[in-house]
């Protein structure tokens, strides 16, 4: 098959398994662009390690958290919650057909978490004291920050990494020699035995820290506008992770399949759209229920600056919720990608606004990220994009039909597909 055969003709297909992208050059201009941006950001991060925070950022004592925390960590890990959202559907609620999508979710999720944690490492002022995390008797268990500090690195480095391990081992198996194959064949039953137990942790932990990210904002109290400050922040942050996570997996699948001329499986994508719609409705139900309970519905429709922001954010989630109820809409790739994009933006908006626009410490202070700060944020993001571009070519990430499965793992050195 090739792009010419499929574009515009046969869109319905049946994704069976992850298959590496082959017959495509690895080094492309796009990759070089993102790699350069990542190198710039990481270079600045190194500078940041030897420099105080002040000269490289726009943060101040009133706005003590800048975009590294509020965007790279608190916002972008919502996009990285695909493994949680899709995994819950696939493994907990037994939506069998979504298993084939898991790898795309896992790789993107891992990259968002890893780059977010990288951002966090260069954001904190005294990173060298982080070793206290290893001593539970030094933990302040009342702190949502502690929960995030323990749970997020643990999830990314252990559970998410474990879920991504089969991709790596599979590549080693098909590209390795007989000894490697024998070892891996021996290890496989053990991995399968512990797999269901380990992935249980991979769902419990993000439920904890994605809600704790919202829990962080509770202590800020009146500094956060009443449309956003609510005891339901932890639940809403978690549900926004569901919205953005499902939205982003849909988005990235469509984008990547269009880019690499992969046939789409509209049954699977439609299922994602269906789930996305329900999660959006669930989010909105809690959001409006909370506003009604706290008597803030008037403020929500006051049409002042904050009200308009709230309405935009709500519309971004309401439109996909309603539109994706129609089967025809969710099985039309163009509509699906538009709606997934809106849901991502809505989820991101909900996660970003209370930490920035709706955060008012009540003094004549303001915050706007400084140029190095922005470049570092973009650098971490670009690192993720570049790594994803490489991952889909070296590992069996993107879903495809069975017929495409030709053991086409490219070798690193030769740069072209290796025949089995």
């Amino acid at each position: 098959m090739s792009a010419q055969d499929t574009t515009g003709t046969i869109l319905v297909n049946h994704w069976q398994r992850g298959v590496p992208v082959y017959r495509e050059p690895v080094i492309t201009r796009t990759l070089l662009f993102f790699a350069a941006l990542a190198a710039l950001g990481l270079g600045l991060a190194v500078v940041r390690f030897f420099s105080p925070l002040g000269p490289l950022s726009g943060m101040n004592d009133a706005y003590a958290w800048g975009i590294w925390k509020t965007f790279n960590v608190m916002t972008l890990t919502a996009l990285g919650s695909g493994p949680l959202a899709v995994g819950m559907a696939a493994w907990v609620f037994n939506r069998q057909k979504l298993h084939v999508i898991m790898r795309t979710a896992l790789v993107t999720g891992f990259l968002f978490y890893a780059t977010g944690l990288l951002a966090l490492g260069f954001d904190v002022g005294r990173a060298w004291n982080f070793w206290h995390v290893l001593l539970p008797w030094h933990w302040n268990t009342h702190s949502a920050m502690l929960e995030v500090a323990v749970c997020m690195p643990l999830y990314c480095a252990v559970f998410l990494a474990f879920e991504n391990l089969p991709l790596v081992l599979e590549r080693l198996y098909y590209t390795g020699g007989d000894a490697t194959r024998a070892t891996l064949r021996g290890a496989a039953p053990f991995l399968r035995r512990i797999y269901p137990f380990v992935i249980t942790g991979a769902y419990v932990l993000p439920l904890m820290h994605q809600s704790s990210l919202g829990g962080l904002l509770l202590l800020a109290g009146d500094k956060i506008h009443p449309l956003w400050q609510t005891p339901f922040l932890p639940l809403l942050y978690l549900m926004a992770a569901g919205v953005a996570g499902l939205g982003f997996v849909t988005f990235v699948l469509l984008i990547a399949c269009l880019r690499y001329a992969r046939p789409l499986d509209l049954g699977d994508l439609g299922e994602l759209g269906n789930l996305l719609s329900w999660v959006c409705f669930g989010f909105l139900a809690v959001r409006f229920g909370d506003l009604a309970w706290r008597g803030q519905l008037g403020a929500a429709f006051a049409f002042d600056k904050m009200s308009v922001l709230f309405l935009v954010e709500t519309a971004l989630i309401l439109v996909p919720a309603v539109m994706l109820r129609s089967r025809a809409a969710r099985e039309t790739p163009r509509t699906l990608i538009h709606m997934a994009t809106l849901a991502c933006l809505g989820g991101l908006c909900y996660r970003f606004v209370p930490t920035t626009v709706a955060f008012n410490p009540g003094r004549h202070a303001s915050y706007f990220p400084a140029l190095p700060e922005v470049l570092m944020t973009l650098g971490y993001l670009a690192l993720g994009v570049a790594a994803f571009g490489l991952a889909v070519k070296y590992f069996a990430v993107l879903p495809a039909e069975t017929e495409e499965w030709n053991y086409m793992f490219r070798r690193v050195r030769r740069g072209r597909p290796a025949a089995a």
Partner: protein
Amino acid sequence: MNTGITRRQALLGIVGVGGTVAAAVAAPAAASEHPAHPEAPPGAVAMLYDSTICTGCKACMVACSEANGLPPDTSLSAGLWHMPLDLNAKTKNIIKLYQEPQGPGFAFVKRQCMHCLDPACVTGCPFGALEKNQWGAVTWTGSRCIGCRYCEVACPFEVPKFEWDQWNPKIVKCEFCFDQRLKQNQEPACTAVCPTGAVVFGTRMDLLAKAKERIAASPSKYFENRVYGEHEAGGTQVLYLSSVPFDKIGLPKLGSTSLGHYATKVTSVIYKWLSGPILVAGLLGALIKRNWNRHEAERPEHERKTGFPEQL
């Protein structure tokens, strides 16, 4: 395909039920750790600052810098003298002037850490760098601080400051002269040096009574006839009397519930002894294992049909 309950699922179920029981037992205990309206422990020290007595001599600022070894903030005085605009990384204590926009009225205000009874900074600090120490002083231990600046986000009084220009930045805030003077049975430098008695040191109980006596003695003198800090954010160990509205001299309008109570009333129940996570793990684990078993049962058939090994 085995759809019955396996030993493992039963075990997980038991763990889950145990978690629920633990949560139920723990709930009342957890709620008491951050009560909505905390009570000052006996022996809690305090400062009472009376804005109507303060002459704005700033002797307390000099004494504070000296006692804490802080460098002068000379950025606005061409390098000549200590002239901060607000609390900052070189200023733990400041006297500020409020001038009525129209009219002759003015008032001074002394700002420093309020030493809350249930401080938001202490609740939020992940590794306990900030803690409620002996006599209720809120102190900072550098070796525990990762520089996350959550204390700055949490503090309703905007007190903790971060050294943005340092490679190994400290959190700078009034610590009630805990190490410098309290431990040596001395009162804080600012109250010791105050020539007019505008700021005095004592136990919270005594100073609250003293403040209320002053209000009773001059019923029309003080704003709202009340002591700021008696109930604000659950109560603080620095108390204020003022003749001008508190929010005009920079003391924010706050509810009487402690932020720690607001932020932890739900999570302290869910996370007590990790009962909530264990319960969720039990439930999810049982479902995942059931679906995994189904998946594994169908695997050989699926592999035979496609001719390729199953992917995880």
